[in-house]
């Protein structure tokens, strides 16, 4: 593929549940309702993907798999929400940084994941990272594939953090 890209780090998330509100006309209210529902029940959504162009509204959020029990209980109590969402589990997120606002790292992610037919449930950028939600069980495989296209510093931080912060 040519020259490899220099990145400063890669982070892999804990196991997640990716919750889709599938694209339907005028579904903005349902996604809004889902976010309010999560907030009311103190379920954190650390990753959000959302678009509303013309009548195409599509939203998704990721929650920690450890919140699955609480999520199931509150969904059971709110069938009008449960019937409108599709949960994908186990999901996981890969974050690479820095993206430098360049298409190169974005292209690398799309190329590697697309060529290997790894699912892209969602992708977005922060100040410095590109984060993609995919199959949790394929995270290590994705990293193995990406390693052929990126260079990490010799003493980069661990891919998985042992530090967990949670709002109660």
């Amino acid at each position: 593929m040519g020259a490899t890209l220099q990145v400063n780090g890669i982070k892999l998330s804990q196991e997640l549940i990716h919750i889709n509100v599938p694209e339907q006309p005028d579904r903005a209210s349902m996604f809004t309702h889902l976010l309010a529902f999560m907030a009311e029940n103190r379920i954190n959504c650390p990753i959000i993907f959302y678009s509303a162009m013309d009548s195409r509204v599509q939203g998704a959020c990721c929650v920690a798999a450890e919140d699955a029990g609480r999520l199931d209980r509150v969904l059971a109590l709110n069938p009008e929400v449960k019937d409108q969402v599709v949960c994908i589990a186990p999901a996981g997120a890969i974050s690479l940084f820095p993206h430098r606002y360049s298409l190169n790292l974005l292209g690398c992610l799309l190329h590697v994941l697309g060529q290997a037919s790894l699912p892209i449930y969602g992708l977005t950028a922060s100040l410095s990272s590109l984060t993609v939600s995919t199959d949790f069980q394929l995270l290590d495989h994705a990293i193995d594939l990406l390693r052929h296209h990126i260079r990490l510093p010799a003493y980069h931080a661990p891919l998985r953090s042992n530090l967990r912060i949670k709002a109660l």
Partner: protein
Amino acid sequence: METIAVYWENRAKTYGFDTVRGLSLLQVSTQTDGLAKIGALLQTDNRGPCFKWVLAQPCPQGGLRLFLVLKQEDVPGMEAFINRVVVKGTAIETETTYPVALINFHGPHFGDRYGIADAALGTLRRKGLPILAAGCTGASVYLTVPDKRSADVITILSTVFETA
């Protein structure tokens, strides 16, 4: 070892809102077989810093929809660049929305706390303000809105987030 700290604030704190106006939102839609080809093409781009923000979502009918927020003057070149994939036999669709504003803000532990997305996206939607695209990851929130509504969006967000 587990550490528990108790902290409460009426309004989540943010370090401030950053707004860039007069941008374009370029949508690129491709089928599944086009994803690797578009990715390979983007890897060859040598223009340096290019996008302001990016979002990608799967299309209901398969494939991926890519949203790129760019400077308006960069759109023609980007469209021409991406259309090189079409020359290679991969179908894509592009659509540009102009003008848009990109608003981003972040705050302490945004990614660790519940309610941040609802406070941002939910509040704006309940107030009837349009959000064309949005993404939250880590401690960052990014919103792409119609350019002429950006001031209204900041006004509303300022009622639910406290600027530190």
